[in-house]
């Protein structure tokens, strides 16, 4: 009985009690959602353009952040360190294409998925050999301060992340929809062999996509690294991005953002108001349940490409 009350009555009273706080919860949710989206975006790019579910995205985030911090620790100025890391991510993309992808043309999704798991191990290993496993503080000058506005608490880092994410998503969405290369990328995701047959150079396409995904990982690494310190745990952020990815649709760039916002708000509101009734820490599975609920109505995710069923 008490449980029922905790679930069906108290949370609503709580919300009604302090609407400003409710608004704050929603805004925090939106801002954490954006942080998830940053990671989800990397997944979307690669999936959309090659049909590969890149398990190593989390490792790429770590790898980029570790390299950046490592370089900065060696005394390299911030801007140059960022450029060098970006360059390294491009080199990495070339290596990945050379050593891995080109040998796996036309294989099923799950096989490519597995290969990226192999990649994940390699990146984790190399990154840590090169830069160690310690926690490192990352500060490239993005302000990380809180301020109160209209009774609500904001953090400048979160706001910057939101801005950066908005810019990235707009650019990428336009790129995919309106350029010839974007079209070619989508073609590759549909059918490797047919893409080859019309002369789409899979190799350079893959290098481009993985490079862009690497750069997105770098951005995610910078923001998350500033937030939680650069360390191995960054890899696990990928798990937070999964429900976002699924809810938004594997193939949709805007989906990654909208999905992030929905998940962010959903899990925060639920955790803050309903968490206590269930004993807390429910946001983890709730994100997945929420994604699942959306999928029941749209099996391809909110903005994903329709799954074609024909005979």
């Amino acid at each position, binding site marked *: 009985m008490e449980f029922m009350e905790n679930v069906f009555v108290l949370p609503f009273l709580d919300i009604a009690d*302090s609407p400003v706080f409710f608004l*704050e919860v929603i805004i925090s949710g939106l801002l*954490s959602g954006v942080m998830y989206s940053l990671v989800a975006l990397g997944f979307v790019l690669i999936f959309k353009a090659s049909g590969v579910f890149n398990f190593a995205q989390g490792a790429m985030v770590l790898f980029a952040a570790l390299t950046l911090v490592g370089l900065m620790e060696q005394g390299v100025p911030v801007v140059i360190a960022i450029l060098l890391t970006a360059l390294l991510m491009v080199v990495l993309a070339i290596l990945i294409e050379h050593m891995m992808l080109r040998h796996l043309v036309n294989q099923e999704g799950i096989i490519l998925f597995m290969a990226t798991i192999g990649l994940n191990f390699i990146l984790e290993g190399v990154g840590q050999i090169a830069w160690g496993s*310690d926690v490192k503080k990352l500060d490239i000058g993005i302000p990380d301060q809180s301020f109160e506005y209209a009774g609500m608490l904001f953090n400048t880092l979160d706001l910057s992340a939101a801005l950066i994410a908005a810019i990235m998503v707009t650019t990428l969405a336009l790129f995919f929809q309106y350029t010839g290369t974007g079209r070619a990328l989508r073609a590759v995701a549909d059918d490797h062999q047919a893409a080859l047959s019309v002369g789409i150079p899979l190799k350079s396409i893959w290098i481009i996509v993985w490079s862009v995904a690497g750069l997105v990982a770098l951005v995610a690494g910078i923001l*998350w690294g500033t937030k939680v*310190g650069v360390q191995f745990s960054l890899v696990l952020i990928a798990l937070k991005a999964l429900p976002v990815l699924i809810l938004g649709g594997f193939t949709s760039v805007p989906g990654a953002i909208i999905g992030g916002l929905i998940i962010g708000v959903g899990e925060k509101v639920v955790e803050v108001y309903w*968490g206590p009734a269930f004993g807390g820490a429910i946001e983890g599975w709730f994100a997945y349940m929420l994604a699942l609920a959306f999928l029941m109505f749209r099996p391809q995710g909110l903005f994903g490409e329709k799954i074609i069923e024909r005979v």
Partner: protein
Amino acid sequence: ESKIAAAEQFFPMLVYRTGPYAPNGIPVANGFRDYYTMINARDGGINGVKVSFEECETKYNTKLGVECYEKLKGKGATLFNPYSTGITYQLIPKARVDKIPILSMGYGRTAAADGRVFQWTFNFPTTYWSQASTFVKYVATQEGGLDKLNGVHIAHIYHNSAYGKEANPTLDALSEKYGYKLTKIAVDHPGQEQKAAWLQVRRKRPDWIFMSGWGVMNQVAIKEAVSTGFPMDHFVGNWWSGSEADTVPAGDGAFGYKSAALHGTGTDWPVIQDIIKHVYGGDMALAAENKVGEVLYNRAVLNGMFGIEAVRTAQGKYGNKQMTGEQVRWGLENLDISNAKLKALGMEGFTQPFKVSCKDHETGGPVAFQQWTGKGWQFVSDWITPITEVVRPMVEEAAAAYAKENKITPVNCG
């Protein structure tokens, strides 16, 4: 067994220098390694018996822990320091059968403090439950006495795992006794994202926060506390939530953060100086790079000392030679860390004296509280003894339940 020369005492080391908990695992592993090395270099071993040791990487993963355990067991291990709650749970039942004692110093299964049921497991000098009670006492000293606790609001932010939940029963029991208000906030593994938890803190505005965190959760919590504007000197971590790895990423904001402690930090202790001298040849920079003097490093030194002293104690009874697991167990059970001994070991004031007994594998040792100054940690309290009259009965009850479930007949400690 054959690999160990007759006059060597083998110490297995389950370490995690890689993976998500590496930032915590590295200083721990270094501390053990350096203490053992120093003992050989300075004293030529334990009463002439050389100390040998080998690391096995567990990545803080229980399943890898099994492999390491079996491998090191085969090499003649006589005492395990698992350094992971999961691995400890898993080794406790084995210890009895394999006749290799476990020392889980300040972690693992609290009920193991009851030596009648957990004959082979030791968790001295103190446990999670005792620690929680010292925290309550510490708050009381700050608020002006135990009677002032009534109406104080304490939040417990904990890692949502068996480890994180350990303090809950004690905090509950004491809340009933002293009348403070307790809010429990769980943070899901691994804890990089804690907005929801801190929104709750903002809403409920507790007076004190106690945290049972681990790994990245600590760093994020400290940062979130800073940005929420929570007064840092009212934010207290347990002894796994108070190391340099936790405070450094938060930068200046972390000033004033507190945590429980079992021992002193820094390099100003004779024992640490000995390590710098014998292991690093006096090279301070190299020592600093190896995290000498950091909280978790010093913890491992303390832990390493316990193992060595247990062997020494056993040698007192069985002779100066290589000890077996059973003999080491005896040594642990009869370990008497007196002030005089601490002084001799170069650890006077580093930690508090205690004496293990057949019945009490914990000793209810005192806990101190330390504060982050931006460069290091500083004690800000006296050594506070646990509220044993509340904790001990809980321990005995839990141990009895375990004994019943696992068909163990408690030994008679006379």
